[in-house]
């Protein structure tokens, strides 16, 4: 098998008493679309941010392009970030700029291209996501789905070979979700980019995934292909995929100290 593009090695992270990662390990291979699933607050988005070098780890390491992110110099980290496209949950467009300026910003910052070329590229990428007619609008004038598509176009501007998607379809109607999924699949099939998609939307996950991982209590409890997930009898996977309210993924109700708490017995 190829060398992994990103190797997550036994990472640990706590926020106060809360354990986010508890010896998490995973390899991500070139050209693959990996979907990371897990409940709300399970640490999926934190993992993406850790892979961008935005969240310091307590232990373990993440190797990107052969270098540990924790030990990258400022310039190496900048170069790594330039090679990654990141679609944020909200789109994270800059509200004080038009859609066109949002897209142009990374090119103006990191390239020597003339403004006329940048404007042509902006139109090409906006056309790709179906927003060319909205280039002069402000982000506040766009719907949630349009913001995400604009965010995707902005992430495409630097032509990255790796894409991170943080809940790309969360809060969208089924049609907008399908459009975003189609864009993700198209990028994968046409440009052969490596993608890491964080989501808890099952339909969306199966539409785009080559490989899936389920994050639970700081560890990947299951890693496998979409078909393995579909046919799995593992109660964890079944509860997540079937959306059952009772099962191993449910939060424990804490009955053991319930009476003490309610009667204020200390």
């Amino acid at each position, binding site marked *: 098998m190829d060398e992994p593009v990103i190797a997550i090695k036994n990472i640990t992270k706590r926020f106060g008493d809360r354990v986010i990662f508890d010896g998490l390990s995973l390899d991500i291979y070139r050209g693959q679309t990996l979907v990371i699933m897990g409940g709300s607050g399970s640490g999926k988005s934190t993992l993406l941010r850790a892979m961008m070098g*935005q969240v310091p780890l307590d232990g373990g390491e993440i190797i990107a392009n052969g270098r540990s992110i924790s030990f990258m110099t400022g310039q190496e980290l900048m170069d790594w970030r330039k090679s990654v496209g990141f679609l944020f949950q909200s789109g994270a467009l800059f509200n004080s700029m038009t859609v066109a300026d949002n897209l142009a*910003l990374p090119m103006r910052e*990191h390239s020597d291209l003339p403004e006329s070329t940048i404007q042509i590229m902006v139109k090409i990428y906006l056309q790709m996501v179906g927003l060319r007619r909205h280039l002069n609008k402000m982000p506040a004038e766009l719907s949630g789905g349009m913001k995400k598509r604009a*965010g995707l176009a*902005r992430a495409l501007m630097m032509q990255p070979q790796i894409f991170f998607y943080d809940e790309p379809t969360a809060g969208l109607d089924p049609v907008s979700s399908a459009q975003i999924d189609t864009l993700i699949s198209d990028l994968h099939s046409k440009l052969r980019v490596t993608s890491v998609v964080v989501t808890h939307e099952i339909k969306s996950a199966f539409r785009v995934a080559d490989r899936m991982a389920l994050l639970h209590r700081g560890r990947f409890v299951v890693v496998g292909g979409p078909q393995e997930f579909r046919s799995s009898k593992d109660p964890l996977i079944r509860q997540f995929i079937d959306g059952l309210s009772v099962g191993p993924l449910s939060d424990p109700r804490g009955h053991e100290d319930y009476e003490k708490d309610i009667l204020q017995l200390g």
Partner: protein
Amino acid sequence: MFRQAIEVLGDFGLMLYRALVAIHESLVGGRGRRIGRANLWWQMNRVGISSIPIVCLVLFCIGAILELQMAKPLSNFGVVPLTADIVSLATFRELGPLVSAVVLTGFGGAAIAAELGTMVVGEELEALEAQAIDPIRFLVVPRVLATMIMLVCLTVLGDIVAVFGGMVVGFFWLGIGVRQYLAHSREMLHVQDFVTGLIKAGVFGLLISSIACFMGLRVKGGAEGVGLATSRTVVYTIVALILVDLLFTAAFFYLGF
């Protein structure tokens, strides 16, 4: 509590250091290190130009108030025209930069904190980092430079307007001629009075913008956090302005300026 305060001060110092390094690099560096003239101009316009009317109004009133307050005690000695000396000196050395800075704190400082705080809440800051754009260089540096430049300009304007305010009151209420008033002002003021005021203005500008940026970038907890950062920015900045003003005045006094 004490440790937390030290940590906050350390973080503030680090941000300020990174901003100063970024200013230096932007002057000598290449692409990816520039501030962007358009961005700087936009910030100067937003922070400074919009506060010109309010600074002028406040300093006109300050000049007029000072003139009236000084008239009574000086009339007992028959030296009412000396009010011009007091108004001019107090304005150029002290009130011009300080009052302009306080007005700009409410106008520009609060706006900067609210704007950056909203960006933090909206993941815009993380988006900048994800695109390998340094938020200090891209967000903090233009705001710091714009506030420093505009506060110096506002102070020059405010000084003139305050003296004009005093002169108007002196002419219409106290019977001091315009030429007499200006002659007294010219006689009292020296270059160092003007320069020390401008030095203070530059430092006050740095203080206002850096505190506002620091508070804005540390926002946590959504809209409530933005509101808290905005009000804290105004309070902390005004306290810091008074303390730094005291230090400057003591230093200038000691050095004989």
